[in-house]
């Protein structure tokens, strides 16, 4: 059977079983690298994508359960040549060590800033809590989210 999904504004017909986690469809069928396999249990956030603007764990979201809701991945925020504001903020803060968690971090931060453009430090930490980083880049990630918020508000460029 085929399943129809909308990813980053484009519609795709997928020949996967409905129980397939969205993560495997994104990575293996659509060849998108942004969402990463981390735990397969919704405990680390490396696979974070947006469904209708909400940050979700794509590793535990069956593709058959998405229906006509729209999916956005890291690739939907910008590109190497034209990075989105949050992506650019992570680059400007050099907020990565190994970088494996960073795609998920950016997606989770993006979801926060779309809802609360000027969060408190406490709100940023609470919101980012589900995503794990093992290299210890947390301080830079928090700075990057703050920077992105400031750029969105026009405080800095």
């Amino acid at each position, binding site marked *: 059977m085929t399943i129809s999904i909308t990813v980053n504004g484009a519609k795709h017909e997928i020949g996967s079983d409905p129980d397939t986690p969205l993560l495997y469809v994104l990575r293996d069928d659509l060849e998108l690298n942004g969402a990463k396999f981390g735990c397969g*249990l919704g405990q680390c956030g490396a696979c974070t994508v947006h469904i209708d603007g909400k940050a979700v764990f794509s590793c535990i979201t069956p593709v058959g359960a998405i229906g006509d809701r729209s999916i956005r991945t890291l690739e939907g925020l910008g590109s190497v040549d034209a990075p989105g504001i949050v992506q650019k903020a*992570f*680059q400007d803060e*050099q907020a990565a060590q190994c970088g494996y*968690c960073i795609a998920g971090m950016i997606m989770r931060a993006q979801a926060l800033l779309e809802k609360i453009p000027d969060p408190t430090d406490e709100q940023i930490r609470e919101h980012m809590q589900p995503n794990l980083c093992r290299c210890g880049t947390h301080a830079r990630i928090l700075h990057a989210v703050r920077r992105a918020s400031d750029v969105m508000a026009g405080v800095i460029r």
Partner: protein
Amino acid sequence: MNPITRRSFLAASGIAVAFAMTRPARAQLAGGGEGGAEPVALAPALPGSLKSSPYLDSWILLDQSGRATVFSGKAELGQGIRTALTQVAAEELDLPPADVDLVTVDTLRTPDEGLTAGSHSMQDSGTAIRNAAANVRMLLLRQAAAILMVGEGDVTSMGDGTIRASDGRRIGYGETASALSMRVEAVPDAPLRRKSQFRTMGTNLPRLDIPAKTTGGAAFIHDMRLPGMLHARVVRGPSEGTRLALPPDSEIEAMDGVVKFVRNGNFAAVVAEREWNAVKLMRRLQASPYELARSPFPTGGVAETLKALPARDIVILDASKPTADPRRSVRKSFTRHWISHGSIGPSCALAWLQDDLLTIWTHSQGTFDVRRVAADLLKRPIETIRAIHVEGAGCYGQNGADDVAAEAALIAASLPGRPVRLQWMREQEFGWEPLGPGMATEVDAALDGDNRIVRWNYDVWSNPHNNRPVGAGGVLVGNEVVPSFPVPEGKPIPMPEGDGSRNSNPLYDLPNMNVVYHFIKDMPIRVSALRSLGAHLNVFSIESMFDELALTAGIDPLDLRLNHMADDRARQVMLTAADAFGWRKRKKAAQLQGFGMGFARYKNLGAYCAIFMEVRIERDTGRVIVRRVQAAVDCGEVVSPNGIENQVEGAIIQSLSWCTREAAATDGTLRKNFDWSTYPILRFRDVPEHIDVIVEDQPGKPFLGVAECGQGPASAALANALADATGVRFTDMPITAEVVRSAIVTL
């Protein structure tokens, strides 16, 4: 026990004194210094890895346009080495960094620089590339002078790939190089560029890998897709030493979606066209019954477990001088539990047998060793195997990367022509990867009437940290196939690098020092290298003791350290960090607020690092809030200030996670941590509110490894701040909120 009786005891009891010295040696091991099959030194007089690969064309090639391709035998592990090495090469070639292409470790293309480990990459590869590039620039300048028919002193490199004569004529690198052979041995004294001339070193060149990692580029081995690629999953019991009773092959091969079922002895893997099918097949097969095929795990505490095993006693330090009599003494014991590497991305490898060439893509820290292991496992001539490093998630030592690379090779060898991608699941990584070893120490120290430390007896118990595979017996699949390859016997890494003994030799000037490493070769749990090896607990122990001694003496912990430290660079990082922290002005404004410091020079050979910390504790929960962290590091000549800060920030946060959260537990049969709920690590809510790192520049000084210098000092600073806040000395990691709460509930 005083030094004399202790020595007498060792002699009388006939314990082998395998290694004894009174001064730390200055030479470092080549090739990562953490085992592996280290490259042979062909030219010992040359700096860094030029010793083992002395020819310039092993390191640098210039094309006709003047672009440079630079080859390193080290790997990008997320530490930013690609960027730092590019900066080094660009500086000494005097080229813009954009004109330098860096090729990282690949058995076909790059020198064998051993492991990428032990904070060695700048020392080994950075030094080699720096000097090789200086040699190349020297040859280019000479050649240009000859072509332009001017004196060698009349030509200058301009930083843009051209050379200018004093009369204004210019010639490009490409044209100059076309008449030059780089198949020449490096000379040790090619002139290096000085800090006043630097265009690239010392600047913050943005990390070259971050754009792809932030926008969904193919940045990791996990992102590789080869034509016709199959997906494999290994099929194992829940944790190391278990064995599944699987159905007959014919039954498994008949399962829907199975392209290939690979079974060899106790190794089993399922291969499918689609990744999710491979996962589902793996899960069905792993539901088979399992049994424990090894001796049961110990269930007691770390010290109890280790001390029950036979040990070889290795004397690390045995120094004595006449001193005043000891007046007041302190004795403490410290432990660290087994710790998981906890890579966010489970280990992954790709392998492809094409005609007679087997190519393996791996994120192991020992790419050349991956090739050796595969040759041994598959009994193939090593020339028919190529191993290429591709970035994985941060590994922090030997996680499952080496295992999965050998497994992918074995699977691909049975599927000629088809590339195979194998990834472990999160629970397989937790269940089977080598853990960072549990360790125990005991310290007995005493002060004389002038608060000088006149006794220092130190014992450390540890398994080998150095179980890096160089043959098939070092990887799981090698132990599982028939006939099987035995697990090699663990060996200690000799000082000055050491393994369990790493940093057990205090840098402080202590007149009497007796340090014994109780090396335990029998490993009750599978272990290997974890970032900083024994330095984590040894620095934790030494620095905790200094604070206890300062408390006993009634003097400031910083002063006690300075009173016993002659090394100027060590004193300087302590003073710099203390000043920036406001150590002398610190004042407790609340109950359960505390201040602490920790210091070490990594291996007494690498970077100097001092860390100061302020904490508060929530009385009801024992939760520790780290409010401020101030670090200062001295790692010699600075290539990338931001890269160094990033590494030290990361070391601090990771160390805080180890110190306050982490213990890989076992019951008699199984490991007990299989996911992030049973193995919690530090999350955003608990990371320090403010971290600052000061990098002390040392123009013209050798590069010193920095990546692991913060692990020991950060955990020590935390324990010392907690002791300051509570009056309780916490000696056993992890110091969880529950441990803290229990300790303060009666205060």
